[in-house]
């Protein structure tokens, strides 16, 4: 479609370009701004009226003069998708970075992504074994879930995400599996780390990688996750694949959102982030799940670094309200030399109950996990007390719980970077630790499970 070029730019501010006296332009349509040197920049219409059209530029406005021309493409942004995207590395705006050929599209899809009709959704209930005990045993991940990692600078969230990507499997399943990886504003070094691991393990040929690096335009970050999820939806719901989407780092995405909000002179919400950030983030996270009568699924593991390790910061806070739980990494654990430093107390998987139990993991799973939670929490509370009164002042019961908490961290939380534990192994390990407690303290476990799985009764046979 050839379209008219306007030379009526009246104002340029931050990432926004204002064009006057155009013919009717649709909201959210794509626009191309041509610089005097002939180079082109893409943008999207944010506000369209009879008098003025506001374009948000994806790649920034630096170098754009008032004399630049603006064209409108008459359509909203679409993503070319194809099966051949597996194994490709693309930029944050979807252009090939690996020197390979352009993608020959099998379809072109709207990147905005319509909401899945809640009626069409299928209940996610298939257990994914990640091989990490704190996740499998205590905060179980299921297919179609969105489970973010809440981390902070300096914590090994990337390693955890990679370990999950490497080890994730469904018991007894060998279906088509793919990884979509979207990096937003991460450093070149981090990107290298991911790429090396993908290459080392051969995961790259099952992956589509989108890279928006720290020095790429911040505005581009706004569309990177949408491109990644559009690709994921194509792989999952057209090509019947099980897709794991890793998004890192959502904090950078939200910063970009704030930047645009400020440029548009919007009324800011908490900490300067736009008031619609909840809806915006929901537009990303909700693109996970299963659909009835479709084979594929989208499971999301977004990573975000909590500024100042503050879980009440708007980014983790709003995320937690949308996602189905969270895996929280804590510096205290890392300092104590524990990898992965996952704090099970503040972690949660809301879909856990759907994915565990008889026929999925093991019948005693829920009870054992609840008991470990309660005992670990009690033991940790006692640590504060010990610091004041010393171990001697504790009753035997309390000392037992204190030891339980220490052992729990050393044996269940702690595991190797390549250690892939089975769910049976994890549960047996949990029983082993619970065996050290007085049996009467196991109030959350049905008697029948104690008789089957408790180490004391097991040794008899």
């Amino acid at each position, binding site marked *: 479609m050839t379209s008219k070029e306007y030379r009526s730019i009246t104002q340029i501010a931050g990432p926004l370009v204002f064009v006057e006296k155009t013919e*009717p332009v*649709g*909201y*959210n*349509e794509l626009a191309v701004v041509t610089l005097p040197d002939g180079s082109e920049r893409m943008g999207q219409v944010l*506000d*369209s*009226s*009879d008098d003025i059209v506001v374009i948000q530029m994806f790649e920034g406005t630096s170098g754009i003069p008032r004399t630049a021309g603006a064209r409108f493409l008459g359509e*909203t942004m679409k993503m070319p998708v194809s099966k051949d995207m597996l194994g490709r590395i693309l930029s944050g705006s979807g252009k090939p970075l690996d020197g390979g050929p352009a993608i020959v599209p099998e379809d072109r899809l709207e990147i905005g992504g*319509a*909401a*899945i*009709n*809640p*009626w*069409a*959704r*299928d*209940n*996610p209930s298939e257990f994914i074994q990640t091989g990490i005990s704190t996740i499998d045993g205590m905060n179980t991940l299921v297919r179609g879930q969105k489970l973010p990692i809440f981390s902070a600078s300096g914590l090994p969230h990337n390693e955890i995400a990679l370990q999950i990507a490497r080890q994730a499997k469904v018991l007894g399943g060998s279906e088509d599996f793919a990884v979509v990886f979207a990096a937003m504003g991460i450093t070149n070094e981090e990107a290298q780390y991911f790429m090396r691991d993908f290459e080392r393990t051969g995961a790259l040929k099952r992956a589509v990688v989108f890279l928006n690096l720290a020095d790429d335009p911040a505005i581009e970050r706004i569309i990177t996750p949408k491109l990644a999820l559009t690709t994921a939806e194509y792989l999952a*719901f057209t090509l019947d694949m099980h897709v794991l989407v890793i998004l890192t780092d959502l904090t950078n995405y939200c910063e970009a959102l704030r930047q645009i909000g400020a440029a548009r002179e919007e*009324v800011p*919400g*908490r900490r300067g982030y736009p008031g*619609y950030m*909840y*809806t915006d983030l*929901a537009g990303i996270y*909700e*693109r996970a*799940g299963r*659909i*009835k009568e*479709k084979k594929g699924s989208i499971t999301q593991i977004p990573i975000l670094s909590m500024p100042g390790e503050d*879980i*009440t*910061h*708007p980014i983790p*806070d709003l995320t*937690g*309200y*949308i996602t*189905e739980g*969270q895996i929280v990494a804590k510096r205290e654990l890392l300092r104590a030399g524990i990898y992965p430093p996952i704090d099970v107390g503040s972690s*949660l998987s*809301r*879909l856990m109950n759907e994915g565990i139990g008889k026929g999925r993991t093991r019948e005693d799973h829920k009870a054992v996990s609840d008991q470990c*939670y309660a005992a670990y*929490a*009690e033991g940790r509370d006692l640590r*504060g*007390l010990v610091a*004041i*009164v010393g171990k001697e002042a*504790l*009753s035997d019961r309390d000392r037992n719980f204190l030891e339980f908490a220490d052992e729990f961290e050393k044996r269940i939380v702690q595991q190797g970077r390549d250690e892939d534990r089975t769910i049976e192994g994890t549960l047996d390990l949990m029983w082993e630790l619970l065996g050290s407690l007085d049996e*009467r303290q196991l*109030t959350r476990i049905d*008697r029948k499970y104690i008789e089957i799985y408790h180490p004391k009764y097991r040794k008899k046979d």
Partner: protein
Amino acid sequence: MGKEGVIYRVAGPVVTAVGISPRMYDVILVGKEQLMGEVIKIVGDKTVIQVYEDTSGVRPGEKVVDTGQPLVAELGPGLLGSVYDGIQRPLPVLMEKMGDFIERGVTAPGLDHNLKWPFTPVVKQGDKVTEGQIIGTVPERAITHKVMVPPGINGTVDMIKAGEFTVDEIVAVIDGKEVRMMQKWAVRRGRPFAKKTAPDEPLITGQRVCDTLFPLTKGGTAAIPGGFGTGKTVTQQQLAKWSDAEIVVYIGCGERGNEMTEVLTSFPELKDPRSGKPLMNRTVLIANTSNMPVAAREASVYTGMTIAEYFRDMGLNVSLMADSTSRWAEAMREISSRLEEMPGEEGYPAYLSARLSEFYERAGSVVALSGTPGSISVVGAVSPPGGDLSEPVTQNTLRIVRVFWALDTKLRERRHFPAINWLTSYSLYSGQLDGWYKKNVAEDFPEMRNWAIGLLQKEAELQEIVQLVGSDALPDEQKLTLEITRMIREIFLQQNAYHPVDTYSPMSRQYTYLKLINRFASHAAKAVENEVSVEAIANMDLRNRLAKSKFEDNIEDILKDIADTMDKEFEALGGK
């Protein structure tokens, strides 16, 4: 100025049009695709419209059509068991029309207009009837659906007939006006009733901490605030499943898609503990998930409330769950900021408090126009950012509601569910319900409850000392108090929503537990006086059996056995 105009400006869900002169809150069809929207502001010749659907690609210059009427809900047989979006479009019909994803520009009526329902008149030709009066019945799922005279119509019945009709067909003529089974009602206006009455009966939920400690009435209002992960949704769903209302309206307002799926898959399978029929038969679900259009989210609570009022008018007890009112408030904030209104606290519009109170005031126990009593109880979840209860939505809600179930992150972390904090929660209804409890549960029920609350309060004080000096430094009597409150917490307050037996605890059983723990406490106090160690009491097999009894299928037998053997087992402990 006519029925049709053109778009002047499009900015996200807010569209400005010229050439029409509608009334505020009238529905406007926007653009080529006829997207539904609502007038939210009129400035000179410009009309500002909030559109319920995505506006990508909509251009200035496209046509707008003024429908001349506000957003209405269709009310009549066929509501029960339905699943709607925020503007009462049935989701299964949308799926049929446009596939697994919600595309736009598709309309679907709230009720099935082709289905025939058997109508039996209860008045006859020549009778004088007034608005709201019941003129006939239709059997529908869990209830007998009552067909009422639409508000505004009074006079003599000129014609009425029995038979099978669709909701569109005329079943009666009153005072020269045609009456159908279906009524349409503007969702933003409360439906009329004769008078409000004081609620005096509890809404029994089967959740021990709610029913016993902080009861809600039929016709009462409650708020459940709590940070993420504290169990707002699970609590709401438990109330939706087990509360003894005849009708449940559940509004998933800006929440997770997968959560709605869970409701959608579990409700048809679960049985109502009273009628034994699937829960879905008495339920209307409204699902406007977080990524569905924000304007429809704003409208969803009104749609739900209007449906609830319709059932109330038939003389039924309705409970309405809104999960979450914070998302509703955020939708208001988002639209307000697009209108460039002057913001109030934290960017919320200055009318936030007024809207919240208007909404909660539509709850209550009433005498309907038909003369029968009915009620709407409202339970609103609140999602305070960062779990900070001083934020505007929580604060404005607390000024209105009379029951406060405070969810607590600390309790959640130790997997104490429901994580309702017994020290900060309150119910302003407990006093006025004492009479009911005395009459229907047990004479000493209020006494038992106050005993438990008092002891828990004492525990909090003792815990502070324990934090400083350790529990061994306490005298035996206080150690025993901690042991008893541990029992209250672990046995009585904790309740496993996922356990088939424990998920619902009838009132009589709640009382039995409380009474048994109380008896245990007085025996134990005597034993301690006789120099039996607190540890020995805590390790009693009896205590252990009591703790585990709530998960057993033959729970009643076990409780009876415990009651019978308690005296003996304490004797066996000996002492001086």
